[in-house]
């Protein structure tokens, strides 16, 4: 599609009177490989191409998309979107396009389409074999490989014109271990904004082994305890906690609608002084990185909380315009099916100075989290949960035995105030973050941290009762 056509489409979108019109065109090619039952079961490849047109008038927006991307159809769609947001008459001039400069480039060394399927299935089988060799109690291993090449063109009535190619690769392994009637699972995954060179840094065997080892370990784990207790989260566990406890609550759409406990708190102490939280789209290769967001705004590094003080929210175009300010480059969408929303990128807690091993030593009775699973938050109340995929009991500063089946529950602002120790180490995890039905790739990270207390939702005895029984 050339600039002249896009210009026409945007003019049609604006002609019923609007403040802003935008075209998002996408051509996405994916390859997915599934291995289960010790063999390559499914190979899927696909093309999804389509375009969405967004029109904003005042605080109303309309969005229309189609995957029939002929200019004729797009003009019809532009008319549809424009009419839906109509108010006052406006006859726009031609738009002179410019391309903002990206802050960083993410060169792809080996484009996945240049790699034969055999080379990809080889990596998948390597992960499968490594997982199966960990222990004879491994009953099933599922390996999933996916590469995505997404070409986008983003153009809007303010003149932004951006063309970009995003390449992402990921590998995930889910292992099932069984012993007698006990069944446990272990999961491990890695992914990045990279081509096939992803495997230079991410060994499929290690990912497979990690998943299998976790499944086997959980076979011998005891039920996690019940009740309130100190929690240490290892850097290896990744950052699901920070993503849920404060990340979502700092997205400007939720803040502006007063659907966040962090609304109207800029400049206030919302966390312990030890806590600095950053959302950064510019970390080379990381799963939540990109050159431009899905509105054509160059990605940035945004400090959200600095030494406990709330500094900034995450903005997209619409929320930024509402406050007469600039976007922070957090306008993201899953595909041409959706309008953009403020979303996280790579979100992390900045490391401190303590030795990570020293942190566990300081805890008398508590839980050590070595791997986090998924999580969820209600931003209005700040209440959140996250899953402990691998946890251990800490007694008198020593790591004792593994526990399973625990979700940790807390309230975002309360938890951040209760962060007592921050280590000097640092670790990442990746995921797909869901909001309003849209999934976007993100990463999160943290050093080893200790939280004074959280509610551990296990099936075991409550700690209080436990102590009582011992005294008897």
């Amino acid at each position: 599609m050339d600039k002249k056509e896009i210009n026409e489409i945007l003019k049609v979108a604006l002609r019923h009177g609007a403040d802003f019109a935008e075209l998002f065109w996408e051509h996405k090619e994916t390859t997915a490989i599934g291995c289960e039952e010790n063999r390559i079961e499914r190979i899927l490849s696909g093309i999804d191409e389509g375009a969405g047109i967004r029109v904003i008038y005042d605080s109303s927006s309309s969005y229309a998309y189609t995957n029939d991307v002929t200019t004729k159809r797009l003009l019809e769609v532009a008319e549809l979107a424009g009419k839906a947001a109509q108010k006052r008459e406006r006859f726009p001039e031609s738009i002179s396009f410019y391309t903002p400069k990206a802050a960083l480039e993410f060169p792809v060394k080996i484009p996945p389409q240049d790699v034969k399927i055999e080379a990809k299935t080889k990596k998948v089988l390597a992960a499968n074999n490594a997982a199966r060799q960990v222990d004879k109690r491994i009953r099933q291993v599922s390996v999933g490989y996916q590469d995505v090449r997404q070409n986008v063109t983003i153009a809007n009535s303010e003149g932004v014109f951006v063309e970009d190619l995003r390449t992402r690769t990921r590998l995930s392994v889910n292992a099932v271990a069984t012993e007698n009637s006990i069944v446990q699972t272990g999961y491990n995954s890695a992914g990045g904004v990279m081509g096939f060179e992803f495997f230079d840094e991410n060994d499929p065997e290690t990912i497979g082994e990690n998943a299998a080892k976790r499944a086997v370990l959980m076979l011998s784990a005891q039920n996690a305890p019940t009740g309130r207790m100190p929690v240490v989260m290892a850097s290896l566990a990744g950052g699901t906690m920070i993503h849920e406890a404060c990340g979502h609550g700092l997205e400007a759409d939720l803040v502006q609608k007063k659907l966040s406990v962090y609304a109207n708190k800029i400049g206030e102490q919302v966390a312990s002084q030890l806590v600095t939280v950053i959302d950064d789209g510019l970390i080379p290769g990381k799963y939540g990185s990109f050159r431009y967001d899905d509105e054509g705004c160059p990605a940035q590094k945004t400090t959200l909380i600095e030494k406990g003080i709330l500094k900034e929210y995450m903005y997209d175009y619409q929320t930024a315009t509402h406050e007469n300010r600039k976007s922070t480059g957090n306008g993201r969408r899953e595909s041409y099916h959706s309008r953009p929303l403020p979303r996280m990128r790579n979100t992390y807690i900045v490391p401190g100075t303590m030795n990570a091993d020293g942190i566990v030593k300081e805890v008398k009775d508590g839980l050590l989290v070595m791997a986090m699973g998924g999580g969820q938050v209600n931003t209005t109340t700040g209440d959140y949960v996250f899953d402990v995929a691998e946890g251990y009991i800490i007694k008198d500063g020593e790591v004792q035995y593994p526990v399973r089946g625990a979700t940790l529950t807390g309230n975002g602002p309360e938890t951040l105030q209760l962060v007592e120790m921050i280590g000097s180490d640092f670790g990442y995890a990746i995921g797909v973050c869901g909001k309003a039905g849209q999934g976007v790739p993100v990463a999160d990270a943290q050093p080893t941290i200790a939280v004074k207390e959280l509610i551990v939702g296990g099936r075991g005895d409550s700690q209080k009762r436990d102590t009582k029984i011992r005294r008897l």
Partner: protein
Amino acid sequence: MHDNYERIAEQVLGRVQQRVRGQAEVFISDSQEMKVDVAEKKVENMLVAQERGLGLRVIAGQRLGYAFTSDLSNFALERVVEQAIYNAKESEPDSGWELPLPSGGYPVMKLYDDETFAVSVDEKIELARNIEESARAFDARVRITERSVYQEAKYRVSIFNSLGLNGSFLGSYCGGYAVVVGQENGDSQTGFGMQYDLKYKELNAQKIGREAAEKAVRMLGAQKIASAHLPVVLDPYTVTSFFSVLQTAFSAEAVMKGKSFFEGQEQKQVANPQVTIIDDGAMPYKLGSMPFDGEGMTTRQTVLIKDGWLQGFLHSNYTAKKFGVSSTGNGVRGSFKSTPEVGITNFYISEGTSTKEQIIKEITKGLYITDVMGMHTANPVSGDFSLGVSGLLIENGELTRPVKGIAVAGNLKELLMDIDAVGNQVVFYVTKGAPVLRIKALSISGD
């Protein structure tokens, strides 16, 4: 919606036959959607969408390959054929791969509502406004509308395979929901109400709004409770949220791969005798109904658990062949982008005999759970779950005060056995239905 899909399918199937010996299947979907979000009486967002696409399954030498495209140009179709064949070559053979034979006609079902599309857009915006108004009018403490939504879609699904199978149907749905926030003394709580239906005239804006408002205000002032082991009542919505985990256990594919906790339990008691669980893709007027599944097998009713006893599993054509049974019509397809996989259609727990009031009345101290968080972290293989929950405390047979910020943990397999009362009214949320259930006891983590 085009009607030349049959021609496109024939072309694609023909191209596959020219290149390889084997079977091929073309799945085409074409859909249109409209959605409008209202807040403070204003239209905040409006969505108008149109999407179509084609998925091609090729089975050659007992190897499966799949490719899809949203671009139906000649060039793209040629590429899809090449990719599906290439992908099949790189997969490993499996004797289970076989496409269904023509069934000799599908039942005629009422799946489309003309009225939905005869009503003007303005009237639908008004419906979304009415939902909001009803929520606001219910209680003055309802102060924020996160969103009040009207949504509708129509879709055509067509399937053709090289064995001569050929089916097509037109379906639609409409619905509305609201998420509102109640506020009092610095506390904010959210509430949610929804209704989806085949028929536009069944939509009740008043009721949706009221439900959202009622849920938000009754949670105001919620507090934690101390850790305990207590009887628990799950409201129908909470029960249906467990289905995302429970459905795996009924999948024959999961059974085959050692990922179901019902493996080897057929014709054994797996739930309390009051429990009957059914999947029914042929249920009249329900949104999970269709004449055939994602690979063209006729849908039907499958009783999974009868009076507590496990009757069988859900099958696609692939798992049916592996088990030596016939498909239950559960080869479900998310979209043209994916292969048919074992999944649920309309899935529900049948009604029992107790009223909700009786169920609560018999509890001295317990918890009525209305909302759960983190269901996606539950383990479908082991059945273990640990969830953040909120709800209402039950004291001496009465709902007394709101509770939040606590967790419950358990195992789904044990939970099914521990159900000791089943409500007499099934409530459907889109395609999932359940009555109120009482669980003997669950471990609750709190202060």
